[in-house]
């Protein structure tokens, strides 16, 4: 059972989105999410659950937080003799230094092309980390094989493009799901086919592509190349029908946290047979005291809850003392909320200490974000 498909997690993006302070010191891919995960856990788990056993992560910068999180890949079952998990970065880029302005994904792929060349899989799947979903890529691969496409892109059809996914690429499809053109969602119309920036193609074709683009010097990004070549190669589309959120702003980060409190979304994303794996931590069960009052919230383990928590996501080892009220908020690992604190619409990064009686209230669409290691 030779493995059919290798995975590439492409962390290089045109104008990498910045959520806000919470990723001042870490890339989006290692941003904490959903109580115990990091953003990248979703794409990695999707790959693993789809039978992909050889994954290269093409990082661009500040990848230390990533390596800390991923370790040997064991927790994703990617610590393997053959294949496994590999993280690449411009550090060991031969070509990169030649021209520092060549900072698109193509040059990062080129710099570590030996990973792609060495693989013995027939296909490759390229995906970003910040498109959060729980998807079975093997179905998309089957579709790709049957369709005779040169490249298959995965997309989601949405009807709120005037509100969400602004700035994302949109696909214009013909009746046979072939992509005619690729545009940009400026938010003018509600219906759109949003590109999930996920590509399936033959491994050999990707290698040829990269060398071709580089030798012509025509593009910095794979997606630009594909846009130009739409008439010359057959680019098809595969529809993802499930939940999708693109984490590219503090608003969308806050929105997905709200979405998770919807049981249907949570069941699809987190409670599916296709489990989301993350770094194993060994915390004791969470303690609720007699004064605890928790409603409609996610709580990770290792917490001690003495106060009230509503519509919120509480990460590991958070202490919520008596009389405190947390509403519509995200509290990351290791925060301490002293007694009688009132928090509405806030995002607390790791290790925040907030002392007795304090009050912080943000707005639903403009939550207050506090960076890590602050004591107030």
């Amino acid at each position, binding site marked *: 059972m030779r493995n059919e498909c290798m995975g590439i997690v492409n962390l290089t993006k045109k104008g990498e989105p910045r959520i806000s302070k919470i990723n001042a010191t870490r890339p989006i891919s290692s941003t904490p999410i959903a109580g115990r995960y990091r953003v990248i856990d979703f794409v990695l788990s999707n790959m693993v659950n789809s039978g992909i056993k050889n994954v290269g992560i093409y990082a661009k910068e500040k990848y230390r937080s990533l390596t800390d999180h991923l370790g040997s890949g064991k927790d994703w079952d990617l610590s393997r003799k053959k294949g496994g998990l590999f993280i690449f970065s411009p550090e060991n880029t031969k070509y990169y230094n030649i021209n520092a302005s060549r900072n698109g994904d193509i040059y990062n792929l080129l710099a570590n092309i030996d990973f792609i060349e060495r693989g013995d899989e027939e296909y490759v799947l390229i995906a970003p980390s910040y498109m959060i979903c729980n998807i079975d890529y093997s179905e998309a691969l089957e579709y790709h094989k049957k369709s005779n496409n040169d490249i298959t892109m995965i997309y989601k059809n949405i009807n709120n493009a005037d509100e969400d996914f602004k700035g994302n690429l949109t696909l214009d499809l013909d009746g046979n799901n072939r992509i005619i053109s690729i545009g940009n969602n400026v938010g003018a119309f509600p219906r759109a086919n949003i590109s999930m920036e996920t590509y399936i193609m033959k491994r050999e074709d990707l290698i040829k592509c990269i060398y071709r683009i580089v030798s012509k010097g025509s593009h910095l990004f794979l997606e630009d190349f594909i846009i130009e070549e739409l008439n010359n190669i057959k680019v098809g589309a595969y529809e993802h029908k499930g939940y999708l959120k693109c984490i590219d702003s503090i608003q969308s980060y806050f929105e997905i946290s709200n979405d998770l409190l919807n049981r249907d979304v949570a069941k699809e994303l987190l409670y599916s047979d296709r489990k989301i794996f993350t770094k194993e931590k*060994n915390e004791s069960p969470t303690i609720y005291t007699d004064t605890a009052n928790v409603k409609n919230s996610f709580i990770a383990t290792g917490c001690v809850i003495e106060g009230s928590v509503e519509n919120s996501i509480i990460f590991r080892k958070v202490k919520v003392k008596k009389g405190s009220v947390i509403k519509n908020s995200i509290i990351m690992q290791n925060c301490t909320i002293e007694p009688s604190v009132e928090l509405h619409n806030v995002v607390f990064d790791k290790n925040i200490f907030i002392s007795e009686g304090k009050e912080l209230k943000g707005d639903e669409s403009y939550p207050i974000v506090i960076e890590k290691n602050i004591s107030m």
Partner: protein
Amino acid sequence: MRKEMIAMILAGGQGSRLGVFTKRIAKPAVSFGGKYRIIDFVLSNCSNSGIDTVGVLTQYRPLILNSHIGMGSHWDLDRINGGVYVLQPYMNEKEGNWYKGTANAIQQNMDFIENYNPKYVVILSGDHIYKMDYSKMLKYHKEKNSKATIAVIEVPWDEASRFGIMNTNKDGSIYEFDEKPSNPKSNLASMGVYIFDWDMLKGYFNSSEMTGINYDDFGHDLIPKMLEDNVGMYAYPFKGYWRDVGTIQSLWDANMDLINESDVLDLNDSRWRIYTNTMAMPPQYVGKDANVHKSLVADGCSVLGSVENSVLSHGVEIGKGSIIKDSVIMPNVKIGENVVIEKAMVGESAVIENNVVVRNNDEINVVSEYEVVKPEAVLEGGY
């Protein structure tokens, strides 16, 4: 390289008194405290005490125990020279023998111990809940120049007759071992934790093979024989939380202790972590109309009803309108809507359908592992 001390954990018991929870699972693998299995405590004690070679002796339904322990990496026991091994009975050229008792189980695994050529062996029981630094006990063993050291704990005088009692001289040396005495002379109960000089213990086993006189059990056979031989045995006084969880009542009690006396057995103490084989599960979800008070809740739970003074293990689901009180719900139990459960222990992966009532009648109610309780059923019997 010679090891100073290795540990042998007796995990062989069928645990018939925990019957309903041990149909598929060996006793030390029974769920405890929401996300642990009983044996996690003694394995973590070994790891935290710096012991890197551990044999786990079992002959009863080892599958879940085996896959729980795996390569030992969760307890940091996946070592190049050493590690944790599950040791079952095996056949040699002549015959195959099941373990005939605690001491016999050790005797049958002399090869394993000899492999590491240790100076000391600590014998442990797989079904006790406590935190103990065996390196301190070893220090005591060396200081006393002891050949066999038995850890003891003070129990209430009125309970002493339920235990194996050690009668000691002033210097801590043991002059008598009283198994469940009707008139105890001391309240120092054996914790089932022994450190032996391996050469001495080996000597007894070797002579047993020569003479044909068997020492099957430590408590009944070997310890009395050693006392008779005056080998120099000392009692090591341990202070702290210690529970034998061999019965339904004691297992329930120990779970409740985690809620009501969370300071005595702090599971979050970073200096003495209790490790376990963790599951990849989402965080717990507490619903809009849920109430959770005075409880311990693990990963992957989904609570839509009310929970009070209870332990919810990982993957438990509690439906709308259900009320769980004074109960221990083991991993992956699914509880439907409008269920009432009071003072109960519900075994792993049991399913309790809608409108079931498990009523409090002073005794602890039990639902077996994998049992399916049909809608509207009313359970009143104790265990």
